């Protein structure tokens, strides 16, 4: 418990933690084989520790971390649902983990079949024609989708389309991805209902618009009711619609981006399809596209020929590659297992329950917290701690106080259009009892925020550290240990 040294600080000269075969081939004299300049002068400071040291060190670190398996994790927009254990088992089969990506189709039919089937399943779920599994995460999916948008317009010799429209409530990756692909980003405001301001959109639309990025339900957890109108408008002016699938957990089996008029949609397997987020990743961000965009998909595309699966690289209109090989395969295996065990009804039930859970919490908190757009929400909702903040306890203080009560706090200060935002996404894998306990904690904190806001400012008190100084960290960055 007391020990929080870095692994480097546990290093002892000469100690070893590895077990390697003794080489049974002749030893090469490295010094005579290579020019001396090429060889390392000083060994890197990699710690010298035993296996025992390593296991204890990282076991201890794990105990200082909080995951979904530790408890409720209503981090809005991130869909921190429970990650079924069987999926982990399937992803760790030697027959998957020990496959080299360049073996060739003959010796990797199992992998290719799985990728092919995932393309089919995700296409069905998204209402798209075809899916590429190459992008490593949502943001890379966005980049890929935007590259396809660019390629599409270019292929039509329509070179003036330099703008991508994003709502002001959108996630930061949307504008950042657009910029990465060389688009100009145009923000449009939300209306008083928290949705795309149709008039503002109308004003923005012209023949310089390459496309619109939208997440639906949006980051306020609200379904864009005018979506058909929006997509008509964008299409009419010659733009394409990109669907940010981060919020797909609200609508699986209920509605599909393809039917809404979206031309491209990504889906975060690490959110909606229950693959673990792993302290920040890896994720997987496949994108599906409408029929006319299929030629632009990254290479290779997995195709089925008779009973064989092949990798098709011969696609002249393809945007090329966005990532090495075929995507985050082992993440895809987990999502595949998830779809296979949930089935169509299971996925729908997941979304229904996720939405029910979010509305339940919303209803039970609406008297104590300001909820700027307070109507039936989808799988998440955003409350505002403005009332509490006025009294001195900000969203941040409430978040830190939740830590002491054993909860991971909701996402805070996002979306940017809500002051003192707390974005609550319970997911379907939480029991009503857990929701009730969380509600209770939030209500208690609202009360405390009134009676003793100072006490919230001192939180957390029960974590392994008290509140950390982020300003100091950024002002004089210490980004590595040094001897």
């Amino acid at each position, binding site marked *: 418990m007391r020990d929080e040294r870095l692994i480097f600080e546990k290093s002892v000269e000469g100690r070893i933690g590895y077990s390697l075969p003794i080489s049974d081939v002749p030893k090469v004299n490295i010094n005579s084989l290579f020019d001396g300049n090429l060889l390392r002068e000083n060994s890197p400071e990699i710690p010298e520790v035993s296996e025992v040291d390593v296991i204890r060190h990282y076991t201890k670190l794990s105990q200082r971390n909080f995951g979904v398996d530790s408890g409720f994790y209503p981090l809005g927009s991130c869909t921190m649902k429970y990650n079924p254990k069987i999926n982990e088992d399937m992803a760790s089969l030697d027959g998957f983990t020990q496959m080299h*990506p360049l073996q060739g189709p*003959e010796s990797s039919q199992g992998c290719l079949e799985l990728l092919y089937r995932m393309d089919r399943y995700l296409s069905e779920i998204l209402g798209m024609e075809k899916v590429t599994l190459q992008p490593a*995460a949502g943001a890379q999916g966005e980049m890929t989708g935007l590259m396809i948008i660019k390629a599409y317009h270019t292929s039509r010799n329509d070179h003036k389309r330099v703008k991508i429209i994003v709502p002001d409530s959108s996630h930061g990756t949307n504008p950042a991805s657009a910029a990465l692909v060389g688009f100009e980003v145009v923000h449009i405001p939300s209306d008083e209902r928290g949705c795309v301001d149709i008039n503002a959109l109308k004003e923005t639309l012209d023949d310089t618009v390459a496309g619109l990025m939208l997440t639906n339900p949006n980051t306020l957890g609200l379904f864009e009711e005018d979506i058909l109108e929006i997509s008509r408008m964008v299409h009419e002016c010659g733009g394409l619609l990109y669907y940010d699938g981060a919020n797909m957990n609200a609508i699986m089996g209920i509605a599909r981006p393809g039917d809404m008029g979206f031309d491209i949609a990504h889906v975060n397997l690490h959110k909606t399809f229950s693959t673990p987020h792993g302290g920040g990743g890896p994720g997987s961000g496949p994108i599906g596209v409408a029929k006319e965009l299929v030629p632009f998909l990254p290479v290779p595309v997995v195709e089925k020929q008779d009973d064989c699966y092949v990798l098709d690289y011969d696609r002249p209109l393809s945007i090329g590659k966005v*990532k090495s090989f075929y995507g985050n395969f*082992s993440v895809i295996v987990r999502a595949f297992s998830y779809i296979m065990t949930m089935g169509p009804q299971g996925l729908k039930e997941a979304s229904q329950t996720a939405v029910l859970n979010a509305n339940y919490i919303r209803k039970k908190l609406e008297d104590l917290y300001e909820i700027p757009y307070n109507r039936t929400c989808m799988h998440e909702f955003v409350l505002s701690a403005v009332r509490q903040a006025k009294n001195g306890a900000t969203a941040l203080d409430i978040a830190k106080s939740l830590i002491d009560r054993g909860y991971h706090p909701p996402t805070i200060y996002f979306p940017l259009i809500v002051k003192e935002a707390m974005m609550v996404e319970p997911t379907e894998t939480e029991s009503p009892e857990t929701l009730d306990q969380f509600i209770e904690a939030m209500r208690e904190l609202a009360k405390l925020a009134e009676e003793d806001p100072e006490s919230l400012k001192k939180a957390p008190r029960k974590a392994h550290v008290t509140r950390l*100084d982020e300003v100091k960290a950024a002002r004089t960055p210490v980004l590595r240990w040094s001897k």
Partner: protein
Amino acid sequence: MKSSYIPATKKQQEEMLKTIGIKSIDELFSAIPDQLRLKEDLNLPDPLSEHELKKQTQELTNKNYDASRNVCFLGAGIYDHIIPSAVSHITSRQEFYTSYTPYQAEMSQGILQAMFEFQTMIAELTGMDAANASLYDGASALYEAVILACRYNNRNEVVVARSINPEYRKVLASVLRHSGIEIKEIDFYCEGDKSGTVNLESLRKALSDKTSAVVIQSPNFFGIVEDLKATSQMAKEVNALLIAVCDPISLGVFEAPGNLGADIAVGEGQPLGNPMNFGGPLLGFFAVKKPLIRRMPGRIVGETTDSEGKRGFVLTLQAREQHIRREKATSNICTNQAMCALTATVYLSLMGKKGLYEVASQCIDKSVYAYNSLLNTNSVSKVFDAPFFREFVVKPAIHPKKLNDELLKDNIIGGYDLSTDYPELKGCWLVAVTEKRDRAEIDLLADRVKNICQGGV
């Protein structure tokens, strides 16, 4: 059957609906226009139980020829190294893998400290001042590096050695296509004792005051160690940055790019304890010299103190990132490859200074032994002359594709067919030999190659 992952019972759901004040779950979806509401179930297979899933998935894996049941001599950027058992015992700790980006530092000290350790190790290996907490893969690390360079010195040409991983070149090309950044590719020597390394004359010629950065890989795609120092001097002469693509295992024996003039070091961290996984997830690492720190893409963990003065770790320099800076961010990356970085950290801790050196030197010993054994069969011929690390190019008497097909029958996964990416290396075969291979396996390879090339079976 009800899913065992959804705890709420029917009865509980009824009560929740009552609280909300509605009659059915369907009402919750009334904001969705009716014409969009699916009237039928999705067309997906019926749900399987765990046991059925296991059986079906095993059937899938049985169609694969994996490296646990076959001997792998394939590399080309992804390597079949020995992975210590302890690694997965740590990475399978639920507190790690079911957590997410440590936005709430106080309850995420575990992953934050591990990432801080990862950054330190990468900085140590590469000889750089700072590293980030991971990018998607080596290829994406490279495009991020090029973008950084061009924004940094406001130039828009990059000079890229053709001897870098072709997969990276392809990604680079597609991502930069519409960026206004121009890529100039430099060939490699095909003859002489420098054969297989970047053509320094061509390189010099390509450089100008428009050059933002030079991109070079060492050991390069052919396994050959490049002269980074010479390259960096040339780059410096035109005030361009040097971006070194490097292999972390090789850095156990070879000089760190940071000490040879590189400004940015990127690469693929898969060899550090991560399984090959059919090519994903991988681990892009990214390290820079001091002036570039605030321009790095991706998550960065920094040290700080808590309100009682105790050391702690937080995500820092977030003003670079998309969730704050939106379109002005240094990158669009959000979800990264944290678990792969954790894997690498645990791997390196286990190997230690000495173990890493041992792995690297066994890779040399064994690849040299394999090279000589293959040449001795008289069924393959020499292609390059420069010394190599873990991987080498030879030209077999029959086409690599054909050769690989035959080898597979003996449960050998053969080398990489260079024909695809390098017309000038038609019929050439890139063979990787890690510390995991033993003499018997290498002898078997040589023996089979000989037999196959000589028409025997």
